């Protein structure tokens, strides 16, 4: 079967279950957002997918065969890690050269061009780069490697607003010219919410949501108005969260609104991904 499937993967570190029976399927040429709070298990999941760590149970299969220790599958996945795994004294230009040796599909000219756009100096040692430029170096590599599965773990760590903006543009350009499956792991949801097609939410080692963004968001809506009106409206509905500001109340409701029967004085807006994420994963979340 085509695609990347994670089946029943469990990973424990001592007493902690970092991944708890994870089942996921990543199709070809789609952009996935792997969303979770810090420590939710995002990096552990990505490390397991790429065979950098071993699952205690379960399997990771790419196009019908395992990924771990499988040369042809390993060369079709690239993971940009949050940690820097490059040697102490390696320069940016050397890293590009060696990535080209390891991945036939790596486009060095593209990497040099992107470095120019981001202002990344090729002669600097990787370990001497600032957090932001360290991230940029890893991003430039990932966006030039041209493999069918690209995993980005916290891709905007330490980037300023301009660089984040540039990254999202370059990501979309690269994806348009050279479609691939992208799995973007992040806790900064607002900025990627337009880019990702599919949402995977992980919380405390478990997958709690896994579906296209549009379908996920269409399951909820937000009603705003006077406290008493909102409470009256929401009485027989499933409210996942609410906030009040003076006499004004916002209620986040599960279901689809019936626009014709909306009471006077209430307005409806769409649930946004970040708000939904916070409700689903927050301490006050009641939807585990």
């Amino acid at each position, binding site marked *: 079967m085509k695609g990347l499937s994670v089946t029943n993967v469990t990973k424990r570190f001592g007493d902690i279950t970092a991944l708890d029976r994870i089942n996921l399927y990543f199709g070809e040429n789609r952009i996935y957002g792997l969303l979770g709070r810090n420590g939710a298990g995002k990096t552990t999941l990505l490390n397991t997918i790429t065979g950098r760590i071993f699952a205690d149970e379960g399997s990771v299969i790419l196009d019908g065969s395992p990924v771990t220790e499988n040369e042809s599958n390993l060369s079709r996945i690239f993971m940009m890690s949050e940690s820097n795994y490059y040697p102490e004294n390696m320069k940016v230009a050397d890293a590009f050269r060696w990535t080209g040796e390891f991945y036939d599909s790596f486009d060095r000219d593209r990497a040099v061009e992107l470095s120019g756009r981001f202002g990344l100096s090729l002669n600097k040692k990787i370990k001497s780069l600032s957090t932001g430029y360290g991230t940029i170096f890893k991003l430039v590599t990932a966006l030039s490697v041209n493999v069918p599965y690209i995993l980005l773990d916290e891709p905007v760590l330490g980037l300023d607003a301009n660089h984040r903006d540039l990254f999202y543009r370059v990501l979309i350009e690269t994806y*348009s010219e050279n479609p691939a499956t992208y799995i973007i792991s992040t806790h900064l949801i607002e900025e990627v919410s337009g880019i990702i097609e599919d949402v995977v939410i992980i919380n405390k080692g478990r997958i709690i949501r896994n579906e296209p963004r549009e379908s996920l*968001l*269409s399951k909820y809506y937000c009603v705003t108005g006077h406290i008493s009106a909102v409470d009256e409206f929401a009485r027989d509905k499933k409210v996942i969260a609410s906030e009040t500001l003076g006499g004004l109340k916002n209620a986040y409701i599960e279901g689809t609104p019936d626009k014709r029967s909306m009471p006077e004085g209430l307005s409806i807006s769409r649930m946004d991904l970040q708000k939904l994420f916070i409700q689903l994963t927050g301490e006050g979340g009641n939807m585990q």
Partner: protein
Amino acid sequence: MQLHFEDERPLFIQIAEQIEDAILSGVFPEETQIPSTTEISVSYKINPATALKGINILVDRGIVYKRRGLGMFVAKGAVGKLKNRRKEEFFDNYVSKLVSEAKRLGFSKEDIIKMVERGFKE
């Protein structure tokens, strides 16, 4: 041009509407090219599939059409079509809202008619 992520309408519908607005206001005259899916998705920072979905709505409505190997172009008569549709929607989108707000504020029918007349003069 800006998208509203908390708008109750999905992103691809907002995309379609914004291109329609641009066609109506003459930014993209008939028989000229509109931006490509990639250009739209890069400038809005949205998934190209979403942008494509938005453009496909316009294709289905006969507002734009595809020229093989060149890109998407504004159809002949697109402005007329858009105006007709928007005229049909005018009552729902503007008049009914206007009337309900007017009631809330205590305006009479005559007050509103006077204001509309003033609006046309200015």
